[in-house]
């Protein structure tokens, strides 16, 4: 049995904790505390990490780590990214500037994204259809990255599994291309 690490990151409220809880086969480890910033419409916020486990059909195990979303906890981003096979960036399309939000994480994980596959999951597009997927793809392309952008609702297990599947396919494709080279 192989074990792999996947990292979930993204803005506060984008659903990192929810996504991991939706697929983890064990009760997830959560470090949510009460949010004291009244400008943010959220009762709780992650200040440490989220952790969950998911076993694939082939018996391999995924260790799912979630980062705190707020930039003042970015010291944890690099630590949590160590050993990760890939990164899933979750974005909340209802926020005032979600493409700028994406840029924050693309820049925050710039070193990692030079060598790791990444998938972007955009939530709340049903109620907030703009910006569209092209805007996110363009923001990634500004940094020389061609990243899949998926519309998801991370409360749905199937959507989270789709993000993970897409990331795993990228990982396999990267591995295949390296073996061919």
């Amino acid at each position: 049995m192989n074990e792999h690490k996947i990292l979930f990151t993204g803005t506060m409220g984008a659903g990192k904790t929810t996504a991991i809880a939706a697929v983890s086969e064990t009760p997830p480890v959560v470090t949510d505390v009460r949010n004291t910033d009244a400008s943010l419409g959220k009762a709780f916020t992650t200040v440490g990490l989220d952790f969950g486990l998911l076993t694939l059909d082939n018996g391999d195990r995924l260790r799912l780590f979630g980062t705190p979303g707020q930039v003042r906890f970015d010291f944890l981003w690099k630590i949590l990214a160590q050993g990760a096979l890939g990164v899933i960036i979750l974005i909340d399309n209802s926020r005032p500037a979600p493409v700028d939000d994406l840029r924050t994480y693309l820049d925050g994980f710039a070193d990692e994204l030079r060598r790791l596959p990444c998938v972007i999951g955009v939530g709340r597009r049903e109620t907030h259809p703009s910006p569209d997927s092209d805007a996110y793809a363009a923001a990634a392309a500004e940094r020389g990255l061609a990243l899949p952008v998926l519309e998801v609702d991370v409360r749905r297990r199937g959507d989270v599994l789709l993000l993970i599947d897409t990331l795993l396919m990228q990982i396999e494709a990267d591995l295949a291309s390296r073996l061919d080279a």
Partner: protein
Amino acid sequence: MPEPTALEQLARAEAQAIAVEIEGVRAVVIATVDGFDVASSVSGGADAQRIAALASSIAAIGQVVSTEAGLGRGTSVTVNTASGFALVHSVRRADTDLVIHIIAGEGALLAQVNYRAAEAVRRLEAA
């Protein structure tokens, strides 16, 4: 700028007192559980806001370790380093929980800092 609350005034007094009373203490930051500094006394250019965020993360991870181990509520975390240590203590209040982060270098005594930190915890919890 709004007047500091009674809790903020007490936190400020405790942070300053710890920094003055104990040799070797380099920084004392009292923060909200989600990492905002409430009061601090720092030297040597330390970033109180950064230390506040660190304290929040360390306290939360310590709490998870304690819970997962079935040891009840986490109360403090000690980080021992090559040339000093860092302590993070949790403060439980009815209105808002806090964390106290003390960074100390060589010359500081862990037991003494722990004792004084526990005293600050009691005062902040009782206020």
